[in-house]
């Protein structure tokens, strides 16, 4: 039974996190929660199926997996079912959100939360000024 952390593409939902920073986030999370990481799994960029993770799980029988965020979970139907079916006994931890749990219900809840947040409009802080933020609030319909 192995404990693994997983790095993915730099684009993680609304965040842009280089893989070395992903490792820092997950290592710090593991340290705070007294978890020892034994294996670091690099997923390829531009992929959200976590296929490498599942392939390694078939061989190594992972017991606990740390990801940086719930946004790294698959967001398409068959990819979601695959990870839920293959890894329902694995304890998943999401460092940025501070969430952990296992099983289909837990993973579904995390995926749904990520999807909900992806639908929320965002104010681009690089394209606004402090003094405009109050106007945005005042004029929002």
């Amino acid at each position: 039974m192995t404990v693994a952390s997983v790095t993915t593409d730099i684009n993680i939902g609304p965040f842009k996190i280089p893989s070395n920073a992903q490792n820092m986030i997950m290592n710090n999370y593991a340290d705070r929660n007294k978890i020892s990481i034994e294996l670091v799994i690099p997923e390829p960029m531009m992929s959200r199926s976590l296929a490498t993770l599942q392939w390694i799980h078939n061989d190594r029988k992972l017991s606990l997996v740390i990801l940086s965020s719930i946004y790294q979970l698959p967001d398409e139907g068959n990819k979601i079912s695959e990870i839920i079916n293959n890894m329902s006994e694995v304890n998943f931890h999401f460092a940025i959100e501070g969430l952990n749990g296992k099983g289909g219900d837990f993973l579904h809840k995390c995926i749904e939360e990520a999807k909900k947040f992806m639908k929320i409009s965002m104010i681009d802080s690089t394209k606004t000024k402090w003094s405009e933020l109050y106007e945005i609030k005042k004029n929002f319909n």
Partner: protein
Amino acid sequence: MDTVNEINSGKGYAIVKIENLENFIQLRKNFIKNLNINSNEDEDIDIVREKIAKMNKSEINKAMINLLKFNNLSEIILNSFPKLVKQLCGEELLIQRRATVIMNVPGKGQAKQWPHYELMSGISPFTYVIWIPMHDLEENSGVYFVELEKSLELIKKEEAQGLVNGPTVLNMMSDQKPVPLKFGEAIIFNPFVLHGNIQFKSNLARIAYNVRFQSFKKPILQKNTDYLKYYKLN
């Protein structure tokens, strides 16, 4: 002016009564129990405050870690103000994943909070903050607020100088008067309102909660799933 307008476009903050006081009293009992400092949940809050005031930083840190068990604090606080929260944001909310517990211990080196506005942290302009003490506040031990109009003026003035929270704002601490509150009262304010606290004299620690929330239907700024979660009011 009604409370919602007062918060949005009046002073920017309002003192409100806890709507569901029973809920909040139970929350205070759970807080005392979860602190794990040899107090039973019915112990007088001032005795608990006195114990906290005598603790060193490491013991306080340990007590704060014990409070991490309290993972639904945000929901409990918001359900103490269901009508007002619904008036401000509707039923579908984005709420702070973990509400903040603040324990200010009296004495030298006591935490002072310099003036700031909540927006600085990257929360959305559509966010509201509830700040609630767990007991009556002694004189000057609460939070002071700078009215919205004045706060916005300062934001603009600093922006013109290329600053955010520069000396003009930071030097405001000396002449501020904190808002007095009794147990059962809270302050709700918008994220543009400058606020902070000053050093106070007491033999007892000051304990308060605060939580941030906004409508799920309004835009977010920089805070995302790292800080917020979806929640539907009961």
